[in-house]
């Protein structure tokens, strides 16, 4: 048996367990606990934490006194990488932020650079409609995961399997578009990697026809399901002012009853030309801002995304059809070098407001600073607030309803 340990392992005199403890110590010390309290460690490998999140729970029997999230297990130094690479080369890294919705990440990043370079609004309409189309397809895929795993977390396995079955169609279509299943690098500065493949519009329309009844069916399975409602209604109620104060965005904020959607508010790309509603939580099954409301907002958003896709397809086949002379890379600058300055670009991702804050010096292709404002990061920060005095089983429901993706929390 060969020695599989790292050759440098011998350098340390410390015990490996001790090193792990030092790198991520619990915040709660033994002497802080009352006699009936216990620290329970949930994660980083627990499936219901949706990735590598560690929750340090101070429990009293089944009750959670306090939940303390420990992050960073998936930290891949995005910002450090972005400060050492030319801007177009960072786009593949943005894929890996929220890897459930890579198209949306691409779009948010690219829009910021385009605005800094002053080429936004000059892009061909076909490029813009394709961007919106793929982003909305990706939004559905992301919400399918959110809804499916939320169901799974609280015991509904069928919904999960149905969601993943339908998500697979979306993954295959986006793979057809970009060549990659999840990490697309499809939206480029000033254009797209390539035009849609021939026959894509038809297949997409076919998917919409297939998916609409399937989505209703899935909706029937969960939305009014007695067990599901009992587990989610009046659980994890997030009041609107708390949500705003914690910087929540996306379905979490809208679930608390605030109609705030950056697609509407900022009206970026061609969203002002498209009709869609912004669903919000209304407390139909319990209190406004509970887990059920956040779930329902996602379900309704999938319906709105389908509407947007239909309108995009209509435009892409009639008003802006494919042509011999259409080059999606025509406006792609050979070198993306914005003038010296700074810009905060934001877009509505499936999880919420994704922001990029760029600082450039105008002399190099490499930005001086590229900060990511990840929606899941701020959304997750509200978890300790929501989890005081609840049951451990409800904590799982709350975490599922917030819908985090650790790729973007840890960056």
């Amino acid at each position, binding site marked *: 048996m060969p020695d599989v340990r*790292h050759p440098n392992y011998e350098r340390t005199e410390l015990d490996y367990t001790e090193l792990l403890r030092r*790198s991520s110590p619990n915040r709660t010390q033994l002497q802080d606990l009352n006699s009936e309290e216990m620290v329970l460690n949930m994660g980083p490998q627990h499936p219901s934490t949706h990735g590598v999140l560690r929750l340090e729970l101070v429990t009293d029997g089944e009750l959670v006194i306090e939940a303390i999230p420990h992050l960073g297990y998936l930290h891949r130094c995005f910002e450090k990488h972005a400060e050492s690479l030319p801007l177009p080369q960072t786009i593949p890294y943005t894929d890996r932020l929220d890897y459930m919705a890579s198209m949306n990440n691409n779009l948010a990043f690219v829009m910021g650079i385009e605005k800094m370079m002053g080429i936004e609004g000059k892009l061909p309409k076909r490029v813009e409609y394709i961007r919106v189309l793929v982003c909305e397809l990706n939004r559905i895929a992301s919400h399918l995961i959110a809804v499916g795993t939320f169901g799974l977390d609280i015991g509904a396995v069928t919904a999960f399997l149905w969601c993943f079955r339908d998500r697979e169609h979306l993954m295959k279509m986006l793979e057809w578009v970009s060549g990659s299943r999840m990490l697309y690098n499809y939206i480029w500065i000033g254009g797209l990697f390539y035009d849609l493949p021939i026959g894509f519009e038809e297949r997409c329309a076919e998917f919409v026809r297939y998916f609409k009844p399937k989505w209703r069916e899935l909706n029937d399975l969960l939305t009014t399901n007695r067990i599901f409602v009992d587990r989610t209604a009046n659980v994890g109620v997030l009041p609107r002012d708390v949500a705003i*104060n914690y*910087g929540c965005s996306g379905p979490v904020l809208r679930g608390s009853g605030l109609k705030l959607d950056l697609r509407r508010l900022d009206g970026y790309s061609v969203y002002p030309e498209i009709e869609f509603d912004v669903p919000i939580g209304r407390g139909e099954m319990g209190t406004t801002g509970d887990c059920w409301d956040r779930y329902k907002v996602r379900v309704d958003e999938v319906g709105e995304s389908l509407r947007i896709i239909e309108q995009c397809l209509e435009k892409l086949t009639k008003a802006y059809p494919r042509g011999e002379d259409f080059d999606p890379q025509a406006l792609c600058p050979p070198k993306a070098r914005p003038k010296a300055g700074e810009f905060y670009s934001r877009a509505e991702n499936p999880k919420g407001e994704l922001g990029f*804050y760029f600082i450039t010096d105008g002399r190099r292709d490499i930005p001086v600073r590229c900060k990511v404002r990840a929606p899941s990061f701020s959304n997750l*920060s509200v978890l300790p607030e929501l989890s005081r005095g609840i049951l451990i089983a409800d904590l799982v429901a709350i975490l599922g309803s917030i819908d985090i993706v650790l790729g973007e929390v840890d960056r």
Partner: protein
Amino acid sequence: MSAALDISAIAALLEEQFGEAAIVASEYAVRQPWLEISPAYLLAIGQFLRDDPRLYFDYLACLSGVDEGPKVGRIGVVYHFMSIPRLHRLVLKCFVSREIKDGTLPVLPSLAGIWRTADWHEREVYDLLGIRFADHPDLRRILLPEDWEGHPLRKDYVNPDFYHGIQTEY
């Protein structure tokens, strides 16, 4: 609901409230105009921005740490605010000297008591750029391991050769 204010109106309100000394620099001629304020006023201005009914900045969208490098010698934080009812936005900057003297990090006041968003974002700035936030409720590293040495987004950061006996660069 009153109309959205532009940056010069916001600056005028701040000057009226805190005097000329509060705003140390500003730039209006760019796409996203900004104000730079003195760290001594940061906490009071933060409270005023949120509580004044004319401003009502209830949403702290983003908080980014910025290191301007050893040549300029400044490090600081850029705040992006939005007011949800008024729909106006504000970019606020606050800079201090970036020097670490005898292991003491540069200090800025914490806004976590006003916007809870600042809590985790300030921890991130502390972790990656090494700014200490005074009166922060729980200032620990957030993304890097607790026993990591140094702050990687500082411009003069040098990678350590080993972490827990594991070589970091190949």
